[in-house]
């Protein structure tokens, strides 16, 4: 553990808490009726985006999912603009045209959330193809859920990436649920990463609730991929703590069941206990970060709330170049 710089540890905590607090804020404002549309929260899965994006630069790409706030924030997108977009404001990343399901920040290589489950596999693969053609030393990452691994796009993307030895890492966020369906009732394999075998692809399973494990696993993937030996499949086991979307009545499981699991899997709790026990960080350091996050969230919220909605005439903008 000593090999982690203080800076990196701080980043881990900062990003995870930032995502958590962001999502809690979004949840509250959604329930209050101030956020339109659907929102899918990333709570409980913060270690994955955080552990992965810690090794990426703005020149690396990620393709995200419907559950994309965490990826966006971890990739370094401006919080104000994320929040404003989710509120449907003109100052958001998509000028209010996209919302939660279509949040994106191309300036940091975040190629977009996707309302189509499994829509991101091929996009990430194509971005990796571009990287290879441009002879750049970057990578592309596709985040995806367990449920999406049953879409045909998964198969076509992974095969193509393997055949062409593309610098892409497929990060499976196996949170055990696809909407109301426990993944094993519709997914024919226990470890989704086993499917990598069918593409002669390297793979690894990590505890997706442990930011250190995710970080290490992803670093291994990154090194592998950068050698030019082809893509890598990283499966992060986690658990979807919240309903599928905010407002989900969750008839398919009990609150107790979820709380019980969360008490063992909460990545922030896990991290905090570890760094304190191993004296890698102090409570004061943690608190300072928390305060910073609180300020940023408040600022983002103020920004979003005080921003204007787009003007109806803007419908016609941004379609064609």
């Amino acid at each position, binding site marked *: 553990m000593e090999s982690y710089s203080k800076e990196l540890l701080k980043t881990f905590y900062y990003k995870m808490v930032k995502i958590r607090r962001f999502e809690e804020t979004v949840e509250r404002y959604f329930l209050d009726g101030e956020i*339109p*549309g*659907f929102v899918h929260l990333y709570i409980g899965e913060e270690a994955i985006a955080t552990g992965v994006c810690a090794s990426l630069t703005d020149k690396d790409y990620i393709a995200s999912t419907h559950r994309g706030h965490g990826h966006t924030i971890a990739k370094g997108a401006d919080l104000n603009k994320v929040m404003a977009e989710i509120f*449907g*404001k*003109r100052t958001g990343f*998509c000028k*209010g*045209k*996209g*919302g939660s*399901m*279509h949040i994106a920040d191309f300036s940091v290589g975040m190629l977009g959330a*996707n*309302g*189509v*489950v*499994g829509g991101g596999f091929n996009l990430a693969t194509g971005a990796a193809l571009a990287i290879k053609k441009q002879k750049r030393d970057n990578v592309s990452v596709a985040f995806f859920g367990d*449920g*999406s691994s*049953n*879409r*045909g796009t998964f198969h076509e993307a992974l095969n193509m990436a393997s055949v062409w030895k593309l610098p892409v890492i497929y990060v499976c966020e196996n949170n055990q649920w*696809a*909407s*109301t*369906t426990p993944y094993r*009732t*519709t*997914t024919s394999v226990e470890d989704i990463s086993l499917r990598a075998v069918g593409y002669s692809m390297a793979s690894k399973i990590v505890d997706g609730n442990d930011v250190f494990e995710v970080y290490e696993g992803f670093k291994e993937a990154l090194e592998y991929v950068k050698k030019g030996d082809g893509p890598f499949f990283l499966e992060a086991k986690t658990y979807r703590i919240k309903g599928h979307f905010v407002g989900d009545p969750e*008839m*398919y499981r009990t609150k107790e069941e979820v709380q019980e699991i969360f008490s063992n899997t909460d990545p922030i709790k896990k991290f905090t206990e570890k760094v304190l026990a191993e004296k890698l960080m102090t409570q004061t350091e943690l608190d300072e970060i928390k305060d910073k996050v609180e300020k940023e969230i408040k600022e983002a919220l103020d920004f979003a709330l005080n921003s204007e*909605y*787009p*003007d*109806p*005439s*803007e*419908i*016609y903008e941004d*379609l064609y170049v």
Partner: protein
Amino acid sequence: MRQITFSQATLEAMAEEMRKDENIFVMGEDIARQGGIFGQFKGLPAEFGFDKVMDTPISETAIIGACIGAALAGMRPVADMHYADFMGVAMDELFNQMAKIRYMFGGQTTVPMVVRAPDGMSSCAAAQHSQSIESWFMNIPGVIVVTPSNAADAKGLLKSALRDDNPVIYFENKILYKEKGEVPEGEYLVPIGKANVAREGTDITIISYSIAMKKAFETADILEKQGIHAEVIDLRTLVPYDKEAILQSVKKTHRLAIIHEAVKQGGVGSEIAAFVAENALEYLDAPIMRFGAPFTPVPFSPPLEKAYRLDSEKIAKEIQAKF
């Protein structure tokens, strides 16, 4: 008559037909455990079991493809598409297999199946969860397309669809699910291919279907106040569409407007307008008018989405300007 919601009407149609025909079953994502994302399958597993109401993987090509295969092997499958927006995922199965199998195999077989596709804008669901893509299927020979606009039709058309030996795409509007209406109990069939003259009038024919029928009625109400008596026709079925009903009405009113929520360009209104311009041009006293969505994806933000929607005041004003 008792009032039930559009959603309940579809449930009633399913249950009644499933009781009669053991070959009917339904599959889709989150329809069994959850009862469908719009509650349109709630309670069905309790009566018919998880064998007849099946939660599938997120695999739209397999959902449609397997329904076709099961239909070929003697079943009457129903596929739930979750959102009509995801039909693109299974488009090859829909247009190259489902629609063509009977014809290209020379009538050897039938493909009796129903594809249920919840469509339209709900509330800020944005570009990939708000679409109305029915017009594509007007250009695809081999499928029947129905688009109920109210609870009674929802039941009657679904029952007809479930008994039809052709593949039927049943577009059910997401906002309509919660709308109540009088729905006959038991045996109630709305015939496929017949339009409904929902309101008689003499001065202009307004043609619509599905959710946009609301706008058609609103528009007719506004016009009525201005002394313009609009005839409102609910197409009910888009493929085949009721050419006779359209011609008859236009020959009476000498004017035509078509209203739908889908994108105007290349929408159903294009086909209807073209058909009338071909077959009844000489009866027309004014330009044909089409009303539909602007030529952009559906935007997310509330004021944008609002502006994107049909506005009956505006429609009525434009119509009136041509009188």
